[in-house]
């Protein structure tokens, strides 16, 4: 049985950031919803888990905004799955989101100055 990390190590994602993470996951290649969740989870070292309850509404939302497009394809195991692919519009959105995120991180880091060691 695989070890499940303690619950407090898992952080629920905010909707705004989730869009950015999903777009980033699709940057390299098109993939289906399950793979997107896996990519986010693995790359974050099991810290970020996307609940399917957030993932699929997010994917459909992104598709409505034309940031991704979907296509039914066969997976390696010959199963039918809906693959999502980043559009050029989505790529622009991702870049903008990423920039905004970095600004946010910088700003927060500036406020939370490292404590002066006595």
């Amino acid at each position: 049985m695989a070890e499940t990390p303690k619950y407090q190590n898992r952080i629920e994602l905010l909707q705004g950031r989730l869009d950015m993470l999903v777009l980033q996951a699709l940057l390299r290649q098109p993939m289906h919803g399950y793979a997107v969740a896996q990519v986010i989870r693995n790359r974050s070292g099991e810290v970020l888990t996307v609940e399917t309850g957030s993932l699929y509404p997010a994917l459909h939302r992104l598709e409505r905004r034309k940031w991704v497009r979907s296509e039914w394809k066969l997976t390696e195991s010959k199963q039918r799955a809906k693959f999502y692919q980043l559009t050029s519009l989505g790529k622009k959105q991702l870049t903008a989101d990423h920039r905004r995120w970095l600004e946010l991180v910088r700003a927060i880091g500036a406020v939370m100055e490292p404590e002066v060691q006595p």
Partner: protein
Amino acid sequence: MIRWPWKNAKESLSEELEAHLRMAIAKRVADGEDPAQARIAALRELGNVPLMEDITRERWGWMWLEDLLRDTRFALRQLRHAPAFTATALLTLAFGIGANLGVFQLLYAVILAELPVPHPEEVVRIHAARTPFDQSWTISYPAH
């Protein structure tokens, strides 16, 4: 039954979630879990599927029409279960609408409609006549 356009999308979403579930189970089994346990765990992870489908569908923006249709069908069914009330309501509506229609038809024919004369705008003088009701004189005025 008419095949509403969102039925395809709904089924597509269900199929998508089923595919996700299958892959989640397969991964757990590949990691060495017992298939039955894997299914239970994967289902739990999938969460509240109907709720998720509702949230996703809400984003499509068709819910209002579907809700309207569902409510209409429900209302009709309820009416069928209460025949006395339905009959009363229908009769009342029929009388009300019918009476109003009749009065308006009369009003239209008598006052609002054109005079039964060719070129009514050229009518200059009309004779006075005694009304049959109260024996008073009425003179119609020239229509401009």
